[in-house]
């Protein structure tokens, strides 16, 4: 996290409107666990992968006071690829399924 506070995630909304919210490690952890479980990874292993990725992303967020949700997804995908490429694929393309 950057010095003096938590990072803000800029979320893009419909009609070009933007809003920001604080980075939530639990939310990221849950979404990575979900991607891993969808790839038939055992629960315990999914949890440990998600914990490591969340820590790596938190480290990346240091000195970055504001990032977009797309930046965050790309970065998490980048780290997740080294641990589980299939889960990384699902995590990255989750929003482009439909």
């Amino acid at each position, binding site marked *: 996290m950057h010095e003096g506070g938590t990072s803000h995630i800029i979320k893009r909304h419909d009609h070009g409107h933007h809003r920001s919210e604080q980075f939530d490690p639990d939310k990221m952890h*849950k*979404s990575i*666990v*979900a*991607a891993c*479980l*969808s*790839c*038939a990874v055992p*629960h315990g292993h999914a949890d440990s992968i998600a914990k490591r990725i969340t820590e790596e992303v938190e480290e990346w967020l240091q000195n970055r006071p504001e990032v977009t949700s797309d930046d965050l997804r790309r970065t998490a995908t980048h780290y997740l690829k080294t641990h589980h490429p*299939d*889960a990384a*694929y*699902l995590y990255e*393309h*989750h*929003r*482009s*399924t*439909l």
Partner: protein
Amino acid sequence: MDIPSSLAIVALAALIHASFQLSVSVLTLLSGHAIGARRSQAKVFRLAWGFILGVGVMTLLLLSFISLVLLHVFGNSGVPLIVWAIACGLVLGIGIAVWLFYYRKEKGTKLWIPRSFADHLSRRSKATKHSVEAFSLGMTSVIAELIFIIPSMIISALVLLQLPSMWQLIGIAVYVVISLVGLLVVSTLVGGGHSLSKIQKWREENKGFLQFAAGSALVVLGFFVYVHKIIAEVSGAI
């Protein structure tokens, strides 16, 4: 048209319906959310079957409704050739549109449907926790892809109207069962423990082929019915 030819046309129309991917995408999302939320395999199975049942019931209702409307409008005197010609034109037109527009030209398997529909289905697939909700989601997803499946249904309804009552029911059953083939394959794969990422990767890698096959099959169907019904009857009259 004899009974085997009619049923073959209905089966081809249903296969084209099955090749459209919106319901498959929603089922993939629904299964992914359910597995990600650590629901039991039995629960995932029930949700998938609730969804498939919803798709099947809505398909059955729509096909029956279109047949009923055509029956009321044209009665037992037979459907005029101009209506057949319009239906064939619609099938050919949608077939060409599918070639050009079915998938969006970006990564993933995003479809050319209104984004508000896609967002709604995405949100609902995440929020679905009970089989009844999955059932209604299945029904909604059929409505969302109506623009692509309506030509297959109209041609099937026109063909079914020419059959004896018993064969009409069999034809409707054949259409509904075949139209669910894609969903049944995906739910079997998910139930068998296959990774969703592998299923989604396959769909993305082959989306060009699926698009081409669906569009081509629609063009073939429209052309075949045009020749088999209109050209044959006109040339017979001459």
